[in-house]
């Protein structure tokens, strides 16, 4: 809703137009239909145009680093290439991404505590929002990494670690208990046992044992048996024969159950509950489900006690069953989006997972990097093939989106370009469109833009940037800069235009603009004939100024015969010849004098005639803007006279044989 009066009168309706970049221009709008009554629109209010821009969370400095860092990792991953490196390499990259998120979360936490942020409620809110989002990303990414990047055969230990990491609360409390030592059990027995229970549910057998061993009752038979049970639990290690492990496991669980049935722990009901959990007792676990924060919290723990050799493909069924149980016991609770994503991962529903990832409010950061690692690691290729999804195309579109978003936001263009580089022709086209749009505030930035375009071989972009800078310099009357940028742009028309301007300015006022630049054009002059003329004429001008008349006259003759003289400059050029013709000791040979005369008659005279025909007799100054010209005809006569005189002298001198 726009607040301006015009919009209010029209019933707060809007119209919007997309502006290049990520902005939308909004203005008030009244819908006029064929049946709406004609009204006098005597509206005096100005039409206000509002620019709407999507806020990006990455304005926060702490969050910026996530972009830059992820970009570096992204580039590393591209170098690894698709499916060529060892699997461990991809896992390392994935780990690096998660490390970035964790470092960033830490930074955010620090930031949140700084006084600067505390005073600013909106910023605090933003930070908290960002933290929630990135925490969730880290969590699902971790799970994703376990299931699809590392691709271990047995997932339970990793899943346990994952659950522990994301529900650290229990571990913190357990540390407190450990520090308290003997008194732990007595001070607050209820929390004591609660912590122990959740420890067991998270599969932290060792910590549980340590806490139990500290207890005063540790020497009692019930505790001793419990210790035995927990200690005796077989843990699967790599390179273990699976069959052997399974039989050990079977033996241990039967033994534990027998001990429970034999009421060994009956004197210690709390302890008995722990052992029941370990034995996979349904009731105890149901109680756990009721206490859990989210459905997947205790799933890994349950798997540890019920199916320690769970394989990734078996996880699907286990997760479904567990979720059913959870839904039955917690009917009021709905799945959070994170819970849903965890489920999708466990159920091997990567398609939906990617879809869900795109909906996270992180400006596509997660989905872009996720899809890229899926594509590069190549472990899910067959899955996507089966589901008829074109994985490269999907990756393209997501990365493209992310990259162009970065490109079009004010100072992230250097990052965005790397993503667009991965998107083949579309990316190249987008760079071509977006790069010239970046406003170069200084020439330094411009040269960075140029380097970027050059690296990608975008000649058109390079030229565009140079042209813009040339025009800008020209408008602020810095002609030296203008001509330099024009030369860089290699645009013949632009160079010609500026050279024309300088020549015309000279013939009008007699002062040469930006002499230092023209003198150093050097080999670059061959870009445009006009520029060659300008530099050569400047050379002549310099010779003349330094009274090196012989060299000057030679150059002038060359210029006259070069056929690159622009029409408007003929008068100036010929007038320049006059003092050389008239000088005391002759400088121009007879042949050249004839040619000057020839030029006067074939170039200057027709020019004057054309001019007279067009503008009439008394309007000569339109063409002859030379500062030295007052009366054209007089000049013409003087020139002819000078030529004749010089010719006479030159002929005599040239034909005189020195008498020895």
């Amino acid at each position, binding site marked *: 809703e726009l607040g301006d009066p015009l919009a209010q009168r029209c019933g707060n309706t809007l119209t919007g137009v997309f502006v290049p970049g990520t902005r939308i221009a909004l203005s008030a709008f009244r819908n006029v239909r064929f049946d709406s009554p004609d009204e006098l629109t005597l509206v005096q209010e100005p039409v206000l145009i509002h620019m709407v821009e999507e806020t990006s969370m990455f304005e926060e400095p702490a969050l910026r680093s996530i972009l*830059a860092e992820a970009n570096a990792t992204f580039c590393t991953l591209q170098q690894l290439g698709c499916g060529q490196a060892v699997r461990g390499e991809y896992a390392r990259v994935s780990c690096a991404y998660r490390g970035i998120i964790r470092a960033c979360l830490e930074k955010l936490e620090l930031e949140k505590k700084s006084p600067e942020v505390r005073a600013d409620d909106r910023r605090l809110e933003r930070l908290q929002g960002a933290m929630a989002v990135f925490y969730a990303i880290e969590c699902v990414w971790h799970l994703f990494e376990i299931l699809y990047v590392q691709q271990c055969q047995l997932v339970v230990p990793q899943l346990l670690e994952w659950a522990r990491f994301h529900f650290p609360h229990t571990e913190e409390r357990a540390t407190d208990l450990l520090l308290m030592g003997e008194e732990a059990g007595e001070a607050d027995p209820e929390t004591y046992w609660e912590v122990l229970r959740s420890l067991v549910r998270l599969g932290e057998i060792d910590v549980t044992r340590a806490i139990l061993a500290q207890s005063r009752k540790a020497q009692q038979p019930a505790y001793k048996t419990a210790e035995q049970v927990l200690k005796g639990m077989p843990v699967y290690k790599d390179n273990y024969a699976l069959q052997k492990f399974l039989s050990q496991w079977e033996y241990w669980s039967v033994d534990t159950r027998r001990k429970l049935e034999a009421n060994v722990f009956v004197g210690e009901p709390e302890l008995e509950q722990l052992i029941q959990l370990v034995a996979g007792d349904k009731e105890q676990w149901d109680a756990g489900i009721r206490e859990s924060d989210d459905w997947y919290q205790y799933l890994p723990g349950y798997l540890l006690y019920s199916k320690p050799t769970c394989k990734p493909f078996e996880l699907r069924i286990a997760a479904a069953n567990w979720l059913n149980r959870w839904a039955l016991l917690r009917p009021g609770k709905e799945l959070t989006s994170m819970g849903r994503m965890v489920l999708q991962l466990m159920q091997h529903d990567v398609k939906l997972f990617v879809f869900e990832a795109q909906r996270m409010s992180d400006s596509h950061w997660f989905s872009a990097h996720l899809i890229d690692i899926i594509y590069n690691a190549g472990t899910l290729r067959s899955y996507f093939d089966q589901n008829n999804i074109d994985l490269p195309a999907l990756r393209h579109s997501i990365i493209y989106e992310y990259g162009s978003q970065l490109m079009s936001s004010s*100072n992230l263009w250097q990052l965005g370009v790397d993503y667009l580089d991965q998107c083949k022709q579309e990316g190249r086209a987008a760079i071509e469109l977006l790069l010239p749009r970046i406003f170069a505030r200084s020439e330094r930035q411009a040269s960075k833009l140029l380097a970027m375009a050059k690296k990608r071989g975008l000649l058109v972009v390079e030229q565009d940037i140079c042209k813009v800078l040339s025009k800008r310099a020209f408008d*602020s009357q810095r002609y030296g*800069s203008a001509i330099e940028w024009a030369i860089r742009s290699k645009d013949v028309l632009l160079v010609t235009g500026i050279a024309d301007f300088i020549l015309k300015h000279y013939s009008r006022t007699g002062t040469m603009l930006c002499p230092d630049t023209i003198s150093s054009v050097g080999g670059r002059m061959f870009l445009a004939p006009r520029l060659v003329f300008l530099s050569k004429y400047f050379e002549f001008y310099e010779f003349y100024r330094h009274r090196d008349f012989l060299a000057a006259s030679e150059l002038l003759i060359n210029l006259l015969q070069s056929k690159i003289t622009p029409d408007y400059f003929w008068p100036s050029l010929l007038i320049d010849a006059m003092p050389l013709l008239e000088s005391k000791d002759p400088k121009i040979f007879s042949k050249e004098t004839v040619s000057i005369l020839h030029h006067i008659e074939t170039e200057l005279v027709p020019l004057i005639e054309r001019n007279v025909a067009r503008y009439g007799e008394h309007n000569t100054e339109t063409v002859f803007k030379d500062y030295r010209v007052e009366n054209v005809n007089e000049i013409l006569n003087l020139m002819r006279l000078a030529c004749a005189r010089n010719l006479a002298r030159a002929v005599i001198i040239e034909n005189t044989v020195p008498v020895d």
Partner: protein
Amino acid sequence: MSQNNVSIHYISEKVSRVRWLPEQLQQSERFLTGSWDMDRNFVRLWRLHTNQFATANVTAGGPPELLPRCMDKVALEDDVTAMEFVDKDTLAVSCADGKSIQYPSLNPLILEIAGHLSLLKVHRAVEEDLLERTARSECLHSFRLLPEPAPCTDLAVYGHDIATCGEDGLVNVLTAGNLRQVKRTIEADSLALCALHFIGQQQLVAANRMGILRLLDVRVASAAQPKTAFMTACRDDKSSNFVSSLASHPMQPHILICGTEEGTITVWDLRNLQFPASYISAHTSTINEIGFHRRDPSKLFTASETGEVWMWTEQRSLGCEAPKDGSSAWLCGDRVKSLLKPQGVLQNISKPINSFDVHGTRFICGGDSEAVYLIDGLM
């Protein structure tokens, strides 16, 4: 290629300049960064702390890992374009400025501060170091015909003299004691100047966008400036090639080294300006900064736009006797390649490295990857 242990620290700012705080007798543990192209640009003072949490490195016998922590910052009006120390705790900072800024304290006066120079003072302390802006110059650079601010592009320091150059082609000389008054303004060029360097107390070299270097005399006004100009060599005669950075040999000040846009290094012997003494192809992109090690003149560093940092070492072990007075490996023309060995310090960064600094064996650099790269114990 290199065994240097690089630690990377992301600082969420594009770094345009980085400098160690000078220390006389010890390794510097503080450095300053200036940022560019951000919504708000800062000069930040960082201090290295040992990482208490990373014990792996220490137990392995390596040096303790160092973590930079931001101690203080000063907001500047626009991009930082160059920073240089005037004395051991005064930093001159030039700023490219194209905006008019309204100061709340000066309301309703709008100050147009453009292409200006600031002095920042570092207060060292045991715990919290402070950084404070002590002086700021008036607008130094603006396009003459239109009253439009021009960015200041580089600065050079000699003793207490500070010279700045800008896109308007002016060179201004000031003293650190009084920034309000410009000692000398020289209309050096009609093109934008890219780099500036003192080659003596009274002499400056300014390089423009076309690759023309000019010798300027601080003592005389624009009209009486010596007309000494020389051009950098270039791979292709028809393409443009500007000088992006300048340095001179710390012991032999007549050796002037220019890094250029196309990534080549041109060496000039200032006693003989007829032709360049050496021409070395180095990087494939703009050399953003070039400079000798402050204490060890046999090492030269170059940082490029494609994210490479190289170290050039004079080969002493080739059996040739120590360079005679006045001659140097850098002036050997074609043989220079055999006398100097480039070595990669940093590679594969893919984003431009804008600046570096070396102090003792500590090397630091930063660029558009929004990170600083720290190498402790170079070589």
